[in-house]
């Protein structure tokens, strides 16, 4: 992983997903970890929106939505 100068904060991307259990999360995990620019990510399965939260540099919401949707799960930006 590239070290970022401290003044650059990663973007935080937040999505509502259709992930239901840890097994499905690990299927997405493989894909997410293949993507350059993701620093950290987690899925909050306790939340009703199964929120996928990503800290990334140089990635857009669209990149993530395409990836997760291709794996067959709902993924849309959680709007403010």
């Amino acid at each position, binding site marked *: 992983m590239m070290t970022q100068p401290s003044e650059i904060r990663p973007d935080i991307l*937040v999505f509502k997903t259709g992930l239901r259990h840890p097994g499905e999360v690990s299927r997405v995990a493989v894909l997410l970890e293949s993507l350059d620019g993701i620093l950290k990510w987690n899925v909050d399965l*306790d939340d009703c*929106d199964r929120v996928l939260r990503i800290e990334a540099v140089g990635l857009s919401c669209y990149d993530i939505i395409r990836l997760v949707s291709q794996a067959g799960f709902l993924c849309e930006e959680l709007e403010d």
Partner: protein
Amino acid sequence: MRLRDENKRFAIREKALEMIVKDGFDGLSMHKLAKAAGVSPATIYIYFKDREDLILQLYFEESIRMSDATLKNFDPEMHFEEGLRVQWLNRAAYCLQHPQRMYFMEQMRHSPLHDKFREFGTPFVVAMKTFVSNAIRRKELVPLPVEVYWSIAFAPLYQLVKFHMGGKGMPGTGNFELSEPLIDQTLELVLKALKP
């Protein structure tokens, strides 16, 4: 791109603390919190990974806040009597000024989440350990198992604080208000018990 706003983060965490004190940990969900704090769930996720992350960050920050308040004007090199008095006054003042923060800390200590939190080696723990070992070395304090020490040195104070916060003393005795003379009277007895 979402930007961090520390004021917003503070408002969210204060609301979370309030909800945990009122309804317990189970009463807190990211959605309920968003509603209560008047922000969207997405905003909360900017600052916190999930519920557990939020609670642990909250606990960490509250520990620091409490430790700073408790260590004010305190020096672990102090004579045991003087140091314990400073501790008592600081702790009482903090509890009376911030009852919610105190209840929150109390709840955390009895929660399984507490085990995920490492407080060994924090400035507060180090200061307290140094204070006690200095006092034992100088023969100002009897050596005791730490639980026994704490039960004598601090539990009486916290019981008085609880009476005060409840607004009443023992059943049937009416109102109770904690005052500095009462603190000193109790502290004197505690010091007598702890003297070698």
